[in-house]
């Protein structure tokens, strides 16, 4: 669904979100500057910005299939990594000067393994060890921060040595402020969706968020400020919806998925997804004397975690409970794609919990790049008929 808002900055965001080698990346490269690709949310963009790189969050947008990637993966591997890897094998990621793969789920880790053996000539390839646990009582806090800080220090040193750059404390502080500003602005965008009739649809929000994964932060922040001012001044989108919904789960790159739900009469007001609200759930301490430690702390203690982190279920329940209250959510759709085991197993806990709490919950499996299917439509329509209390 489109709100019909006439906004050149929104059009720019949609263009940035729609391709890998988008105009921002092209312009950046033409200036002789470097791009650092990364998987996934626990990777410090601040470090790359301080080193003079454009951080580029890896995506599968534009993929037409997984034929080449399938040779490298097992049938148990998810389609997010297959589509991303297929894009790499077909030369769509030739602009990368480096790739940092976090120890996210096992599927993401296989990207790192395969990237080493595939004929891909990315100058720097690094596996960043991020703790896969909220920590036992004795490990929580300082030991976890120290551990991740050490991993970040190793990465920083490697970037400095291999590219001949210096990542100074002032540069890191500046980068932290820049990234925090992005997070705050994105939060403001979500705040607007608390209204009875939000001025922006879920699909449009998704494109704005996706644009932020590959645009230089100064430019993105400036454009987002303009868009926010326009949205604040615009009337909400008047539509009769059956229910206000929250979407949870792994990465959603295809705005058509949100469209499908909203065309069916749902109003998606909030999410807990990889490219969505989870991105701006907290900010890094800007005043810390040790910026690297502040970044480490943010990524092991402060942010919202996905199910790849052991012990994050309690936090997820709270995030969802808060969203239900703040955004007046009437139903939750837990989406995922085939073989996404972290979310698949997480729903086994989440589903019964929501049912017991009386919150309508729909579990949906979808394709990664194409969301249109009769069965998906039927499930969404039936769920909305159930939640809305009227057929």
């Amino acid at each position: 669904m489109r709100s019909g808002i006439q906004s050149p900055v929104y059009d720019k965001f949609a263009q940035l979100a729609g391709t890998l080698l988008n105009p921002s990346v092209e312009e950046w490269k033409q200036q002789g500057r470097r791009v650092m690709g990364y998987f996934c949310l626990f990777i410090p963009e601040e470090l790359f910005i301080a080193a003079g790189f454009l951080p580029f969050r890896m995506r599968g947008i534009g993929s037409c299939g997984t034929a080449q990637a399938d040779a490298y993966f097992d049938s148990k591997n998810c389609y997010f990594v297959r589509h991303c890897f297929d894009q790499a094998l077909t030369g769509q990621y030739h602009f990368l000067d480096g790739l940092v793969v976090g120890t996210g789920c096992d599927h993401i880790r296989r990207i790192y393994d395969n990237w080493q053996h595939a004929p891909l000539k990315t100058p720097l390839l690094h596996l960043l060890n991020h703790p896969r646990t909220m920590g036992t009582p004795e490990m929580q806090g300082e030991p976890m921060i120290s551990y991740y800080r050490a991993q970040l220090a190793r990465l920083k040193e490697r970037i400095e040595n291999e590219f001949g750059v210096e990542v100074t404390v002032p540069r890191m502080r500046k980068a932290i402020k820049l990234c925090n500003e992005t997070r705050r602005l994105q939060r403001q965008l979500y705040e607007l969706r608390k209204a009875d009739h939000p001025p922006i649809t879920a699909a449009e929000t998704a494109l704005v968020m996706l644009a932020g994964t590959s645009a230089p932060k100064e430019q993105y922040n400036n454009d987002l400020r303009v868009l926010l001012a326009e949205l604040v001044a615009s009337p909400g989108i008047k539509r009769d919806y059956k229910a206000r919904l929250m979407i949870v789960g792994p990465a959603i790159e295809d705005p058509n998925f949100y469209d499908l739900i909203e065309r069916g009469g749902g109003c998606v007001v909030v999410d807990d997804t990889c490219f969505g609200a989870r991105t701006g759930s907290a900010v890094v301490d800007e005043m810390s004397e040790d910026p690297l430690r502040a970044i480490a702390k943010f990524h092991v203690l402060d942010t919202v975690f996905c199910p790849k982190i052991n012990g994050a279920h309690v936090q997820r329940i709270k995030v969802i409970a808060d969203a239900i209250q703040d955004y007046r959510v009437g139903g939750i759709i837990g989406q995922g794609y085939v073989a996404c085991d972290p979310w698949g197993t997480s729903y086994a806990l989440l589903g019964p919990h929501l049912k017991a709490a009386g919150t309508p919950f729909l579990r949906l499996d979808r394709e990664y790049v194409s969301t249109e299917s009769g069965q998906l439509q039927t499930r969404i329509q039936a769920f909305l008929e159930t939640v809305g209390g009227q057929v």
Partner: protein
Amino acid sequence: MIVGGCDLGSTTGKAAILIDDQLFCGDIISATTKPALTATLAMDSAIKKAGLKSIADLEAIVGTGYGRLKVPFATDNVSEISCHGRGAFWACATVRTIIDIGGQDCKAISLNDNGGVTQFEMNERCAAGTGRFFQVMAKVLTCGLEGIASTANISANPVSISNQCSVFAESEVITLINEERPLPDIITGINKSVANRVSSLVRRVGVNIDVTLTGGCSKNEGLVKALEKLLGVAFKRLPVDPQSIGAIGAAVIARDKRQVQLAKAASANPQLGG
């Protein structure tokens, strides 16, 4: 009030007409390659059975099923989950759990005491546990769907079908045929395999009595027996054709919607309300 419902499924088209509370179901029509034609054939049959002149006699029609957006004469469309819920509850108000096994999917639907859908589960994107699975097996066994459904083919020594994928299960059945296993043993094994698959869906929504089976596969007595045994309940037999429940529910919903529409019009213009 005269209203109708049309259920365009993956393999058949069904239509039902309600004249006040009197139900008329049309013949089950095999799906053609043109959904609009299938819908028209199904509705024409129901119109004839109801003794009406034409579709113009109907005040509201709800389309449902996979082809619900392609029913050319529908005034509204509703998911088959809601329609099966409403249809089964209309036919028998004690029903709380519906198991619908159609041509390309199966669903378990839970109802509250007012007949509203509280929860549903559907099969994943594969043919296991659906009518398509039976079609594949009937072809391999050259016994027709009637042979699979026949009580004469219920055996006390069913084979075990380990694969749930239709393609792999087909290979498994071919092996069993070549081992010269008795046909009833294989057929009972096939029905048991589908019942296993479907029962897990039902357990997710909860087995609340009365439980009833709808959809084309509800006519397979071998499957009915296997599923009843697995779930430990005797299914409620509906007083109407269980394959037409989706269309019946669509007609009931059409009636409700039309009543709301008329009430709104009457309150907006009291003179019209008489």
